[in-house]
């Protein structure tokens, strides 16, 4: 039986009992009770049932009250848990009414802004009176429009000022809380990212310094060796030339290593610029192959190129994709014996464009296939054959392709050859702001 109906039944029985008692009393006064003994007895039975029912109802009510109390305690405890969490997180959290007046501020808000809670409550968030007002007026107008009119979440970096006048940078998210589609509260969460930015700046400075300091002596070596080999200091004997060629090649390796390390740190720090521009893929491939030409010639390797006819100009960053192609091509040349064959394919696969670099070289060992894209990893079968190599090329290529929305992979059989491929969406790469680009 449904709970309410049962309660109603107990309630009616109680009313009947009370009514019966009343009637009995009136009869007792007005008439001789004995003549109505039977009726009285009947009433007594009814009233007893009623009393039991009432007693049961009271018990039930008491039980429900207890249950409700338990639920309330549980809910209060739950609420306390959330309150404690909001109160103690390291992010500055502020809840305001629909006009931006602060209703609540957590401990981190006090710590970050330097204002006491009593100074914050009831005042408008994001104004000069408190920690805000450091950005242009138009910035706050746009922000307010987004959260109040568009009813959307704002997320972005904001310059703020602590109570002691110190400026700081925070990453803020302000969300409108809607009840029946009406903005009722705003919840603002801010993280002080001043220190993170400082570390970023120091890292950038370090990279800049390292790039300069490491490259300067390498440049001097490069130029003197070039002049020596060019006969600027007189004709060299055959053996002298051989030795100097070795020094020059080692120096070039060192330059390549510095460049790779710099590229790596730029990619990993997310500071790399992606500047897509409509690019003729065939031209890009052929230009890249020109750079590989001398190495191919040295190893007397044959080259075949096949580019599908129906490839449109694609919006890609030629500098980045060239870097990937150079990495794959130099690997193919390096890890294929003299007289081997290198093939390059560019295929139109509908949504993607696929670049393939195929060789008939040493291949990748089965057990090492899942490690080949790892940073600094070099295949154990080729390390002894080719000392030149940093173990960074494929890692960088993978990072570039993946950050361009593409995929990279390979198929290989030991001593039969390898095909490295990477795909790029035909819709092109997405532009990304940054500070640096890769170098060749």
């Amino acid at each position, binding site marked *: 039986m449904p709970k309410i109906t049962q309660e109603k039944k107990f309630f009616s029985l109680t009313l009947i009992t009370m009514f019966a008692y009343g009637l009995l009393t009136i009869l007792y006064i007005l008439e001789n009770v004995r003549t109505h003994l039977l009726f009285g007895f009947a009433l007594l039975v009814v009233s007893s049932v009623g009393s039991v029912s009432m007693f049961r109802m009271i018990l039930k009510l008491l039980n429900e009250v207890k249950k409700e109390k338990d639920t309330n305690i549980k809910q209060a405890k739950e609420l306390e848990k959330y309150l404690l969490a909001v109160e103690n997180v390291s992010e500055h959290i502020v809840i305001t009414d629909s006009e931006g007046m602060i209703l609540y501020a957590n401990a981190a808000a006090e710590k970050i802004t330097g204002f006491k809670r009593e100074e914050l409550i009831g005042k408008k968030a994001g104004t000069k009176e408190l920690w805000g007002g450091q950005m242009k007026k138009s910035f706050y107008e746009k922000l307010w429009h987004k959260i109040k009119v568009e009813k959307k979440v704002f997320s972005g970096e904001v310059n703020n000022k602590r109570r002691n006048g110190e400026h700081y940078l925070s990453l803020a998210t302000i969300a409108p809380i809607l009840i029946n589609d009406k903005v009722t509260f705003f919840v603002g969460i801010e993280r002080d990212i001043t220190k993170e930015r400082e570390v970023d700046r120091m890292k*950038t400075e370090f990279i*800049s310094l390292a*790039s*300069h300091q490491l*490259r*300067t*002596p*390498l*440049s*001097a070596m*490069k*130029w*003197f060796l*070039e*002049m020596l080999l*060019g006969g*600027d200091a007189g004709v060299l004997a055959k053996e002298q030339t051989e030795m100097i060629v070795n020094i020059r090649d080692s120096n070039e390796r060192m*330059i390549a290593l*510095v*460049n790779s390390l710099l590229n790596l740190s730029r990619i990993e720090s997310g500071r790399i*610029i992606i500047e897509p521009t409509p690019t003729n893929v065939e031209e890009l491939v052929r230009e890249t192959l020109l750079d590989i030409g001398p190495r191919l010639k040295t190893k007397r390797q044959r080259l075949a190129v096949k580019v599908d006819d129906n490839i449109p100009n694609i919006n890609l960053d030629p500098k980045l994709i060239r870097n990937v192609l150079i990495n794959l091509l130099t690997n193919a040349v390096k890890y294929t014996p003299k007289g081997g064959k290198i093939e390059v394919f560019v295929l139109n696969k509908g949504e993607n464009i696929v670049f393939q670099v195929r060789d008939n070289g040493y291949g990748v060992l089965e057990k090492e296939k899942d490690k080949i894209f790892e940073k600094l990893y070099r295949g154990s079968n080729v390390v002894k054959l080719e000392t030149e190599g940093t173990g960074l090329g494929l890692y960088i290529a993978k990072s570039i392709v993946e950050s361009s929305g593409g995929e990279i992979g390979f198929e290989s059989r030991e001593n039969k050859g390898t095909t490295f491929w990477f795909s790029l969406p035909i819709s092109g790469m997405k532009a990304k702001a*940054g*500070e*640096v*680009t890769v*170098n*060749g």
Partner: protein
Amino acid sequence: MTVIKLNCNLQTSRLNILQLINIINMKKILIVEDDKFLSSAYRMKFKKTDFEVKVAMDGEEALRILALFTPDLILLDLVMPRKDGFALLEELRKNEKWAKIPVIVATNLEQKEDLEKAKGLGVTDYVIKSNSSIADIVAKINTVLEK
């Protein structure tokens, strides 16, 4: 014997005049580079060319040289002690006498902001030293001077 000697003298003096004409027509280059090995490489390379070259170790020395020597081109490093390449470029651009001298920056800095800053100061070319051969730099200088 006397006649022969006279002829020899005449020939010598004719050569001297030709050399003098050459010297007068020689293109003048100011190299500003603080690294002693790199500046020595420049000196050795340019000895074999028809340029009149002066080398400054920093921006301040470059300004002292510029007071007496107006080059046809400046080859400029960026990171230098005392007055760096950017500061020198700013001074060059402010001074009417030097504002139009073409400048090729030869540096190992390659951050976008450095490159853009240099471009903003009107440099003709920007070369990354470790990625270029010295012959490339000479070729770039020749191209700019021929214009």
